[in-house]
């Protein structure tokens, strides 16, 4: 790859995917860290451009994932993400539109899951990745991914039931 090809390819890749990388970064590390994660991800992506596959999104998310794990101590990232998860629920609660109660419950339930479950579920539900690509991002086989996704889904259902019960108790005691 010659240099001009490389920078043209990089620029196109950035234009096509920066919003998705940002969304992923927010969902894994919160907005507080997301801008840093995005810029570092694209720096690493540039330096590793010769390794970039033709459909770069899963690869970019792997880079972003490594950046997050390498750059921040887990507590720092978890704290930022916890703020983010709370903010989602709060902001949805402040909204008066239809279907808000359901969205709020789903987000609250999501917040209660273990991070590994949350990651699998959001890769598929929010970031539009196929199961194969999502498996690549988290670094497991597709078969393993299916099993883990199935379990994560069950746990989300359970958490959702718990959240709803808490909510109705709240309503009731008012």
């Amino acid at each position, binding site marked *: 790859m010659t240099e001009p090809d490389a920078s043209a390819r990089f*620029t196109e890749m950035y234009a096509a995917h920066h919003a998705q990388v940002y969304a992923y970064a927010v969902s894994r590390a919160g907005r507080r860290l997301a801008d840093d994660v995005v810029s570092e991800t694209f720096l690493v992506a540039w330096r590793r451009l010769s390794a970039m596959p033709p459909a770069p999104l899963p690869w970019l998310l792997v880079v972003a994932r490594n950046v997050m794990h390498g750059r921040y101590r887990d507590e720092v990232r978890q704290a930022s993400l916890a703020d983010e998860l709370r903010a989602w629920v709060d902001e949805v609660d402040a909204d008066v539109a239809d279907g808000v109660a359901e*969205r709020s419950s789903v987000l609250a339930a999501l917040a209660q899951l273990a991070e590994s479950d949350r990651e699998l579920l959001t890769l598929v539900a929010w970031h539009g990745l196929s199961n194969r690509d999502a498996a690549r991002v988290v670094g497991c086989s597709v078969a393993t991914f299916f099993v883990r996704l199935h379990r994560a889904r069950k746990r989300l259902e359970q958490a959702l039931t718990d959240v709803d019960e808490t909510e109705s108790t709240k309503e009731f005691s008012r």
Partner: protein
Amino acid sequence: MSRHRDVLEMLSEARPGQLDRGPRPLDLNAITAYPRDTTRRRRRRRLLVAGGLIPAVAAGALAVSAVVVRLDAPPPASTATGREASPPATAQQLLLTAADRVALERVADEKAIAGRYWVIKTEQGATRQVGPAGRPYDILQKISQESWLAWTPKDQSRFFFQGLGAAPATPADTAAWKRDGSPAKWTQPAPRGMKPVVITAASGPRRLKTTRGTGFVLGGRRVSAAELSTLPADPARLKAYLLKQDTTTGETQTEYLFWSANLLVLDMPVTPEVRAAAYRMMAGLKGVTTLGQVTDQQGRKGVAVAYTRRGDAGTLGQVRLIFDPRTGQAFAREFWNLGKSASGQGKLTSYTLVTSAAWSSATPPEK
């Protein structure tokens, strides 16, 4: 609530809008200006040297700007005596005056447009945190860059970089550096799979990077010289052109417009009319303020306009553009972290300043 529906579907529908605000604008030239990682050993050695500034770019988010071009050299400090200029009070007035003044450059440009290259010299700096975990301090790392930007894709652009070393950022940082044993180099951890980055206090060698053709980035996209020469010279149409390239909304959108206008007046080889339009567009943006008279990192006097946004972490991030109010020429851009409130001193995060810029038809240096 119904449990008949699939939870994944419910989760999809609950996708928070916060995911879609989009990142702060990134300066792609600042990234692609650095050598890529290849499998060859020889390149790895160079990477280590080049690696010095890379995380700084990331740390500043918007951070260090790289490839820059402007029509004319900025004013020397001695001629920029603030008092005669008596700048108007508001950011809007300053920007509109700059637009009028910059449009007068026309004649000089037409004489010069025969050049094959924009030759532009910049100095860039970035603040980075180093030192022991319990007692960190800031150092300011600087590089100089000389760019020979080919106007046609037939010619090769050449970029020369030189690390100018690093030093503690403030007197307080100097004290902390002494307590750290006055090190002459600092090692920073890298993301997994990457080598740690070593920053040295001493200057480094001059390095060359070449690319064919131009390489101007606007709106997150590479634009050709031809496209730059057809940018609208009307503020509203220029704004519409820029918004077409971007999908962000709200505050982030204003920041994007300010940032793009900033590139047009400081970095891009555009006509004086387009630069005037960029100034007028900035004048119409909500939240652009002036800091009055300032000096850049080389002590040159000008006025600054700024856009400040409260980041999601609650701290205020500010982009400043410094220009000569008498000629409308922009000559520096700075990023500041103001902390939680605007009343504080704030901390310089990074800057780019232009030391000279001119057309040339000469052959670029080999090294």
